[in-house]
């Protein structure tokens, strides 16, 4: 496939936003059970609005992918069958919760909604956070399934696709939360940093597993099944157009093999190795600058990862477009 930058930015930006929200609410959940000190409401509030900014940037990026953005509202209709439609519904719902969760914290409107028999009081922000968590995961699953449900694209048609969207988004979000905490709640930076390292390493394992899997894929479709002629030697001599077509522009990344493998090495280094090391250093030598570099490197790494994710997918239609003439 030819990677579209609109989709690369959409998936990486909302992933970071989802991860940041999950990180903030994880900390609040720990605090609910007195495992960590409860932070000032402004910490959660502004953090949630920061996550909202990321998802809004992602949403804006997604419009550049549409030929007819003015009709985008129509895309919520087919939620029964289309994962894209489901994503279109879940993303604004999640953004709404990000806003409400942030607003509830910042306005101080956080009434106790119920008291559990154990004496635990459940506040409005806890309920909103719980709904937000469900929506964050629903959004990860929807985004991942957009790609994983296409059975022809064997590189994507795997549960690893969904798992990696969750882990990669979570890793960048927790790294961002570590940076955010280093500035506004330094005492919690270690907590976020620890989780950021764990999720980054899990994401490394998940992405490694999908790279390993994809390197061993045997394409189901061949030129023989594509044109239905069972001869071992078939060569295309014309594809019906000399100046290229939508089929040659949309489905081929057009980069050299060396560029392709360089991107792979770059994203393994930038998205996983470098941030994990910087986060580990931060645990002993806390430094906001270090974390800023860690987040930026990881985000650039994830852009490269997403580019590679698209470029690696080999569409069976390419069998019909191998030679111009």
């Amino acid at each position, binding site marked *: 496939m030819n990677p579209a930058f609109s989709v690369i930015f959409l998936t990486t930006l909302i992933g970071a936003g989802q991860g940041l929200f999950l990180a903030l609410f994880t900390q609040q959940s720990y605090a609910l059970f007195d495992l960590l000190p409860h932070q000032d409401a402004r910490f959660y509030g502004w953090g949630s609005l920061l996550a909202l900014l990321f998802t809004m940037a992602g949403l804006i990026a997604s419009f550049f992918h549409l030929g*007819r953005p003015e009709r985008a509202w129509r895309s919520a209709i087919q939620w029964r069958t289309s*994962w894209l439609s489901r994503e279109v519904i879940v993303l604004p719902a999640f953004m709404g919760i990000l806003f409400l969760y942030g607003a509830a914290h910042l306005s101080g409107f956080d009434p106790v909604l119920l008291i559990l028999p154990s004496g635990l009081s459940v506040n409005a922000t806890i309920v909103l956070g719980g709904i937000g968590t469900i929506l964050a995961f629903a959004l990860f699953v929807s985004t991942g399934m957009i790609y994983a449900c296409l059975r022809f694209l064997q590189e994507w048609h795997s549960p690893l696709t969904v798992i990696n969207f969750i882990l990669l988004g979570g890793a960048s979000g927790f790294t961002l939360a570590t940076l955010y905490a280093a500035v506004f709640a330094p005492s919690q930076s270690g907590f976020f940093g620890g989780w950021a390292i764990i999720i980054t390493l899990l994401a490394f394992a998940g992405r490694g597993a999908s790279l390993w899997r994809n390197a061993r894929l045997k394409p189901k479709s061949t030129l023989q099944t594509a044109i239905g002629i069972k001869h071992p030697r078939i060569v295309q001599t014309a594809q019906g157009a000399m100046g290229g077509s939508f089929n040659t522009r*949309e489905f081929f990344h057009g980069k050299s093999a060396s560029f392709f493998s360089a991107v792979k090495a770059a994203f393994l280094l930038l998205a996983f190795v470098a941030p994990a090391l910087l986060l580990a250093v931060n645990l002993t030598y806390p430094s906001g600058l270090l974390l800023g570099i860690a987040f930026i490197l990881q985000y650039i790494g994830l852009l490269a990862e997403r580019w590679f994710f698209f470029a690696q997918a080999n569409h069976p239609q390419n069998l019909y477009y191998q030679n111009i003439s």
Partner: protein
Amino acid sequence: MTQLALIIDLNVCVGCHACVTSCKEWNTSGSAGPLCDENPYGADPTGTFFNRVQTFEVGQYPNTETVHFPKSCLHCEDPPCVPVCPTGASYKRKQDGIVLVDYDKCIGCKYCTWACPYGAREIDEKQKVMKKCTLCVDRIYDTALPEADRKPACVKACPTSARLFGDVHDAESAVSKAIRESAGYALMPEWGTQPANHYLPRRKTNLKIHADELERVDNPLKVDGKLPKPNKSDPALDDVTSW
């Protein structure tokens, strides 16, 4: 249930692209608006087509065959491009099985092209909506046309009659017979899309004539053995050779 489809006979297709130009001419002139081209007279002309003819060389020299391969939407019975459409712009008609795009609902997200293993859909780069073969739906039901013209433009244009059009669910239709009797096959059967369009394979016509077939084997003058003896009472032809 009706399922309209094209049957393409690779044995007679000569790769003349008449179906491509005829398709383009008909579908760029209709009420749905043009099939836009970019740079039509420039160095790299490109544009939207419903139908393309590709060419493949099969075999190793000197035993090669050139196969011309017309390629358009196959109107799958289980079209993978339809359920992924977020707006419902892409749909399969119940009454005749044609897969269509509602150009007024399409948002141009291109997700359907990712879900089509055949690369049958092409975006119109000017109108920014997805386009694909309609089986000339604006033509085949047009009662203003003479009955013989109510066929897709490509079928009408083919000089070798390599394209047949009809209902593949009707076992007695000409297209069903062609599939049955000439070993019609579907493309990429491994994905279970059940394409309605079928292709008829290349055939080698061999006629074996045995020597005895060149003379009348039932020649009444040829005597293979003695004729049975007639009875004495039987009438003779000449009253001489009989008893």
